[in-house]
């Protein structure tokens, strides 16, 4: 404990009485008034004044502290909201980017589809053209085949006509020679004469028949074409 001399005590008391200035703080708790009632009263008043001022300061500090806590909470809330806003903004931007990307993809797909449509159209045209070419080739082949068939037929007919003419000429010639020999030698021509006329008749008939048949066939073939 601190002990003060009488003069100091008296000066402190006078200062308090005249200018209301007193000791403050924990120093008051270690001052021994040594039974001096007036100084003990001074110390008690100073302690009370100190406690009053501390109480006021404590209340204000608590208010400030409370407001500070609220401010910190608001600040945290604000930061949280800002973060949420930032996240939302980023999400929106991402969505926009995705939409842009999807739009580009759709545009690309549309262009691709158009390109494929054009390709398909070209392929269709090519197929059409190929079909026409094939049909033409088929017609040409059919024509060639028919020509070959006709040629073969005409060749066959020509051969038949030639053979038939040779047979006719041969038989007619032989019969005629035999008939002429019989006439020149004076032999009986009754049989050979009638035979010759029959043969000639038959041969002529057949010759005309052959010619008629050939002409008919030729006419029918030309009409068909």
């Amino acid at each position, binding site marked *: 404990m601190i002990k003060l001399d009488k003069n100091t005590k008296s000066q402190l008391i006078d200062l308090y009485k005249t200018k209301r200035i007193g000791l403050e703080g924990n120093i008051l708790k270690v001052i021994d008034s040594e039974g001096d009632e007036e100084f003990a009263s001074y110390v008690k008043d100073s302690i009370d004044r100190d406690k009053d001022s501390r109480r006021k300061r404590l209340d204000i*500090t608590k208010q400030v502290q409370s407001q500070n806590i609220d401010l910190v909470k608001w600040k945290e809330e604000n930061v949280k909201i800002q973060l949420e806003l930032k996240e939302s903004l980023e999400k929106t931007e991402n969505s926009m980017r995705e939409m842009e990307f999807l739009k580009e993809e759709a545009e690309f797909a549309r262009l691709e589809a158009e390109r494929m449509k054009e390709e398909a159209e070209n392929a269709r045209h090519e197929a059409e053209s190929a079909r026409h070419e094939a049909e033409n080739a088929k017609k040409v082949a059919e024509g060639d085949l028919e020509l070959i068939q006709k040629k073969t037929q005409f060749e066959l007919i020509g051969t038949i006509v030639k053979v038939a003419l040779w047979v006719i000429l041969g038989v007619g010639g032989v019969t005629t020679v035999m008939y002429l020999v019989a006439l020149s030698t004076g032999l009986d021509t009754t049989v050979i004469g009638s035979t010759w006329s029959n043969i000639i008749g038959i041969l002529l008939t057949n010759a005309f028949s052959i010619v008629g048949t050939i002409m008919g066939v030729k006419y029918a073939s030309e009409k068909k074409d």
Partner: protein
Amino acid sequence: MIDSILLVDDENLFHLVFEDACSLLDISLSLEGIDSSDEAAKLFEGWQKDPSGKPECVFVDLNIIGSSYDGIELIRKINFEYGNHVVIGIISSSNEPEEQAKALQAGAQFWIIKSDDIEPRLEDFKKDFDGYKNRTNPFKVYK
């Protein structure tokens, strides 16, 4: 009355509240407030060699922003590394039983919950102080 108190808390505004509350309640004669656990550790390291000025009681905040370690680690260091037998505990707005168990393991003797109405808790603590000094009181949470 407690002779001297050391408060380790990063919140300077609480220093004023604590100082005024202690003064009003006649809890201590002197009080020093610091805002860093590193500074507190250095002080205790020094008090190992020269204990003059060493506080009788230490109040440590749980989370000390800007420091290398938290309040529980500081208590562990003071108790087990610097071997200073001071009355020591946590003063925090947290009331987590897990943290309180950790503080007990680190050698904390009390846990005072910070709030606007700190005075009744400090008054209760003042009554129990001798028990903490004699190491007879168990760990207690002042709610």
